[in-house]
């Protein structure tokens, strides 16, 4: 009886780990999509600004990605 509870708890913690990263990745996934799409739009409108837009895009992606990375770290902490 006790053994099965321990096993169940281990299983639940694995599910929690999966959920922690999975849920943390949803928002940044959408966010990076928006950043990339808008950057593409801007580059199509003004190709001469492509270099600068790309630099800014990478910076914005890095900040958006930070949230997913926090979830990734949390996965190991649970």
């Amino acid at each position, binding site marked *: 009886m006790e053994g099965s509870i321990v096993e169940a708890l281990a299983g639940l913690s694995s599910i929690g780990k999966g959920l922690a990263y999975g849920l943390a990745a949803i928002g940044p996934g959408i966010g990076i999509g928006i950043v990339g799409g808008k950057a593409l739009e801007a580059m199509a409108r003004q190709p001469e600004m492509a270099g*600068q837009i790309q*630099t800014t895009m*990478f*910076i914005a*992606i*890095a900040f958006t*990605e*930070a949230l997913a*990375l*926090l979830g*990734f*770290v949390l996965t190991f902490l649970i």
Partner: protein
Amino acid sequence: MNPLDLLPGKIEELVHELSVLPYNDMHATGPVTEPFVLTNYVVWGIVSLVVVIALFVAVANREKKQMRLALETGEATALAPAGRLAGVMEAGVEFIRDMATDVIGEKDGPKYVPLLGTFFFMIVLSNFIGLIPGGKAWGGAFGGAVALAGISWIVFVFVGFAKNGAFGYLRSLVPSGVREMALPARIGLGGFIFLLEFVSTFLVRPLTLSVRLFANLYAGHVILGVFAAFVSLFFPFVESQLGWSAGGVGVGAVSLVFLVLMYAFELFVAFIQAYVFTILTAVYIQSSVHASEH
């Protein structure tokens, strides 16, 4: 025998292969825990540093020699790159210099080109070494990524305090608009924003910088390893003694194609991660240099 039964063993082998081990004892059980052990990651990290230094010293010497020769003979080749390798390296250095002046500014940027250049070339080379079977990427071990992010952290915190003074740097964490509000809002809202900005500047920045590099490289290596394991398990007569079967050959062939595609993608990731690490360091330095302006 079902090849999938062998897969867990393969994954275990893969994780062991990617863990931090003494460089001369690949069969050690478990990762190294005691300090001051020459590990496989340290050895390959030193290799990538030495290669970067050797490349730059060699090219710089050739450029100097050509410059002197051109000045003596009066030929117009003084500013041309000395050979094909020098051309590539010059393009790389120019790339870093443009990044520094674009992000940090015309005046303060050039001072940080050596730091950013060392970061970029060391990380990109060590990432490529990590893609050679047997080689290890310095950022592929979490400690290595933390060390790189730690250097970046020390630099931008030091620059922030040196340029703005201890009080000025901490004060600049709160936006100027909030600082000019009436007293209760200034303390309440200002204190809240200060706490948020403090955590995000001093804790989250180095954390994300190191985790980004580590997670991308580690995940990439695991994906390559899993596809390689699938190829060796499913192709008949390689490892599982599967014998001829259409399914085995099919899965093996698809895995092989994906392995090659993912390898190409990892080459791209190796470059992109070095670029992102460098440009984020530049952005953080910029926010420290110009802290008093916002």
